[in-house]
C-alpha cells in the first residue's frame, strides 16, 4: 500500500511538471505581458528594459527551469498585474471556489438522486418526462446564458437575490467563508445553481439508468416476491446498489467543477480562482497562470489518487502488488 501511494505521488510530480512545461510553451502565444504592464507613452527602450528584467527574453527552457525551480522551493513569484505575491493571491481565492463547488455539488446530489430514483420508478409519468426534458435543456444551453437568465429573473425582475459577488463574508482564520451569513448564502444560490446544473443532470441520468438496471435484476424480483415493502425495496435494496458507480463518477467530476468554474465565476463576478485566472489571461499575467495551472493539475492528481485508493479498499483484487 505504501509502495502504491509513494509511486503515485512520484508520478504526480512528473504530471505537474509536464503540465507546467506545456503551459509554459503556450504562454508565448497568449500575448505580450509588457505591453499590458506599461502605458502607451512608455518608450520602446523602457519596454525592452522591463522585458529583460522580467527574463522574458530568455530561452523557453531557461524560463521554465527558473519557474519550476522556484516552485519547488515554494517561491511562486509576483503577479505582473497587481505586483502581489502569487501564492497569497491564490490562497485568498481558494475558499470562494471550493465553497461554490461544494455547494453546487451538494445541490446536484440532493436534487439529482431523488429525481433519478423518481424518473426510474415512474418512467412514463408526465412529471418524469418533464424533468428529463428540462434538464436536457439545462445542459444544452451554455453556462453563461443560464447564469445571465437567472440573474435577470431573480436579481433584476424579482429582486430576491444579489446579482454579483460573494455578499457578506466572515474570516475563519485564513479561510474567508460566505457560508455563515444570510447575505453570503443569498449570493451563493444563483452561481451554485448555474454551476450545478450540469452535475445535476449527469447525476439524475446516471442514477436513473443504474436504478432501472438494478430494478430488473433477479434479487429485486425475489425481494418483491418475498413481500418486502416498496419503500425498503427501492431505497435499501435498489438505490444503495446504484450508488457505487455514481459516487465514483461524481467524485471525478468534482475536479472538473472546481477547475472549470471559470465561466460561472466570470458571470457572477465571483472572486474565486476561475475569475483570477480569467483576469490573468487578459493581462498576460504569466506567473499567476503558471501557478494556477500547476495547482489545478495537483488537484486532479490528488482526486485521482483518492479514487484509486478507494478502489483498492473496495476491491481486494487491486491490492495485489504486481501481477506477474
Amino acid at each position, binding site marked *: 500500500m505504501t509502495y502504491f501511494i509513494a509511486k503515485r505521488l512520484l508520478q504526480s510530480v512528473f504530471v505537474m511538471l509536464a503540465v507546467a512545461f506545456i503551459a509554459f510553451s503556450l504562454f508565448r502565444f497568449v500575448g505580450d505581458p509588457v505591453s499590458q504592464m506599461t502605458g502607451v*507613452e512608455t518608450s*520602446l527602450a*523602457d519596454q525592452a528594459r522591463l522585458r529583460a528584467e522580467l527574463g522574458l527574453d530568455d530561452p523557453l527552457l531557461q524560463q521554465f527551469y527558473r519557474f519550476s525551480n522556484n516552485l519547488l522551493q515554494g517561491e511562486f513569484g509576483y503577479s505582473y498585474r497587481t505586483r502581489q505575491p502569487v501564492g497569497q493571491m491564490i490562497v485568498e481565492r481558494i475558499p470562494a471556489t471550493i465553497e461554490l463547488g461544494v455547494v453546487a455539488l451538494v445541490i446536484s446530489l440532493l436534487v439529482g438522486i431523488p429525481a433519478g430514483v423518481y424518473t426510474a420508478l415512474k418512467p412514463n409519468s408526465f412529471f418524469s418526462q418533464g424533468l428529463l426534458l428540462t434538464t436536457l435543456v439545462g445542459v444544452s444551453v451554455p453556462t453563461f446564458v443560464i447564469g445571465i437568465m437567472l440573474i435577470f429573473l431573480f436579481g433584476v425582475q424579482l429582486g430576491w437575490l444579489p446579482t*454579483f459577488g460573494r455578499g457578506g463574508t466572515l474570516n475563519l482564520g485564513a479561510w474567508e467563508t460566505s457560508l455563515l451569513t444570510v447575505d453570503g448564502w443569498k449570493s451563493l444560490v444563483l452561481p451554485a445553481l448555474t454551476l450545478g446544473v450540469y452535475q445535476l443532470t449527469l447525476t439524475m441520468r446516471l442514477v436513473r439508468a443504474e436504478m432501472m438496471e438494478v430494478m430488473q435484476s433477479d434479487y429485486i424480483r425475489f425481494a418483491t416476491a418475498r413481500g418486502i415493502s416498496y419503500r425498503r425495496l427501492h431505497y435499501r435494496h435498489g438505490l444503495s446498489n446504484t450508488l457505487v458507480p455514481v459516487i465514483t463518477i461524481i467524485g471525478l467530476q468534482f475536479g472538473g467543477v472546481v477547475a472549470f468554474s471559470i465561466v460561472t465565476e466570470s458571470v457572477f463576478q465571483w472572486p474565486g480562482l476561475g475569475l483570477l485566472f480569467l*483576469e490573468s489571461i487578459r493581462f498576460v499575467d504569466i506567473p499567476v497562470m503558471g501557478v494556477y495551472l500547476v495547482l489545478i493539475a495537483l488537484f486532479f492528481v490528488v482526486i485521482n489518487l483518492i479514487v484509486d485508493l478507494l478502489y483498492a479498499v473496495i476491491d481486494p483484487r487491486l491490492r495485489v502488488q504486481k501481477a506477474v
Partner: protein
Amino acid sequence: MKQLTTQRCLLASALLALSTGTQANTFTWASSTDPQTTDPHAVNAAPVLSFLNNVYEGLVRRGRDMSIEPSLATSWSPIEGKNGWRFELREGVTFQDGAAFNAEDVLFSYERASSEASDVRSWFSPVTSVEVVDDYTVDFVTKDPNPLFPDSIANFMIMDKDWTESNDAALPARDAENFATAHSNGTGPFQLKSRDPGVKTVLVPHEGWWDTVEHNLSEAQFVPIGNAATSVAALLSGEIDFVSPIPLQDAKQVESRPDFKVLEGEETRVIMFGFPHEHEKLLDDSANPFTDVRVRQAAAHAINIDAINRVVMRGKVKPASQLVPAGISGFSDANSGRPEYNPDTARALLADAGYPDGFSFSLKCTNDRYINDEALCRAAASMFAAVGMDAQLTTVPVRNYWKELRADDFDMYLLGWSPGTFDAEHPIRFLLHTQDNEKKLGSWNFGNYSNARVDELLPQIQREIDPSARQGMIDEVVKQTQQDVAYIPLYTQPLMWATKKNIDVTQRADNFFILKWVTVN
C-alpha cells in the same frame, strides 16, 4: 495608526451627518477593470490614474470641461531667464496622514516619477532639472521652451516624501509589491479605507481636504465587474449606483426604466485605420499597393461612415476628420472635412493606380479593445470589398495585437488614439513622426508614415509659445497628412455611463470618474 485615522474620520463624518441632519450616503460604483495598483507612478493606465485622481492630486488638475486649473500649485509662470516653469505652491495643504505639503514633496515626487522604475517618466522627458526655490516655490527647468508642460502633468500625483520613504516605497514597485501598491496617502478629497484587489475598494472623505466639498458622500465603494451584462444587471437590481462603461446595445434598456439614466458623451479617442506605408510587399507576397496615395484615397472613399454609425454604433458616434476630435486644443478647424463616401470615385482611383480589378489584402483588428471593434471591421471589410479591395479580416485580442503590429504583421490595421495631453501635438509625436527609437518618437506609427516636413514641424510645434503661429503649423501638418491619407480617421468613440436617476455625476471627456462631483439627491 492608519486604522485610527480612518476611525476618526468615520466618527467625524458620522457627527457631521447628525449635526446637519443629512443622511449618510454610501455610493457604490462599478467599472470593468480594477486598478492594478494604488501607486500613482507605477502604471500609466486609465483605470489606475482615473481611480487615484480621487485620492492623490497634482500641481494642476482638470476641471469638468477638461480645462487646466490650479490644484496644489496656485499659479505658474515661465521662469525668468531660463526655459521652464515656476510653480507657486498652495500653503496649508495636508496629506491624509496629517503631514504638511511643501516643495520637498514635489521634488521627491518628481524624482520618483521620473526614475527608471516609473511608468510615467515620459511626462518628464523635456525636463532637465527641478529646483526648490523656497518651501512653496518650485522650478521645473526644461531643455526648450515648453508651453504645454503644465497641461501635460495634470496626472502627475504628489506623494508625501516622509511617508513614502519611511514605508520603503521610495521607488515605484516594478516587479514585486511595496507599501504604496495597496496603501495610499495623498492630499485628495478621498482616502483609502480598505482595499481587497479585484473585489472591493472603499474610500472615505478626507476631512482635512483643502478645497470646498461639493459631494455629499460619506463612503464610496468601488467594485470591478468584468462582465458587461453582469454590471448592467447589478445596476438595474439596485445593488450598485453607477456603472461605466455600458455596452451601446444596453443603453435603450437602461433608459426605458424610470429609475435610471444613461449619460452619453464623447471620448477623446479617435478610431482609425492605418496603412503599411513602408512595407515593400503585402503579407501574401504581392507588391504593396498602399504605397500609392491613390489607393489610400480609394480606401478612404470606400468607407460609408454614416452606415457604420447607424448599423454598428447605433447612431452614437461623431465622424472624425483628423487624429484628434473637435474641442481638443490644436484641433484644425481649417481641415475638418472628411473624404466623402463615393464607391465610384474609389473604383476610378484604383483603376488609375493600376488596379482596375482590385486586389486582396489582410486587415487586422482587435476584438476586445474598442467599442464594437470586430463589427466595425467586418462592416469596413465589406465596404472595401464593394470597390474591389478584398479585405481578409483577422481579429485578435489586444494582448496579442500590439506585438503583431510591431512585427509588421498587417496590411491595414485598426487603431484608437486618445491624446494623453489633450492637445493635437500628441498624435503627431506618436502616430505621424517617423519611427525614431532614440528620440522616442513615432513609437505607435506602426506603418511608419514618414514625411520630412512633418518631422521638421513637430519640434517647432512643441516649442512655439504664440498660439496662432502654433496653430498654423498644426494646420499644415493636418493638411499634409490628410493629403497623404496617412490614416483614415473614422469617428470619435462614444462614452456611455449609466446611473440611478437620483445621482448626479460629471462625465469628463477623458472618461475619468471623479468622485468629488457626485451628489446623491
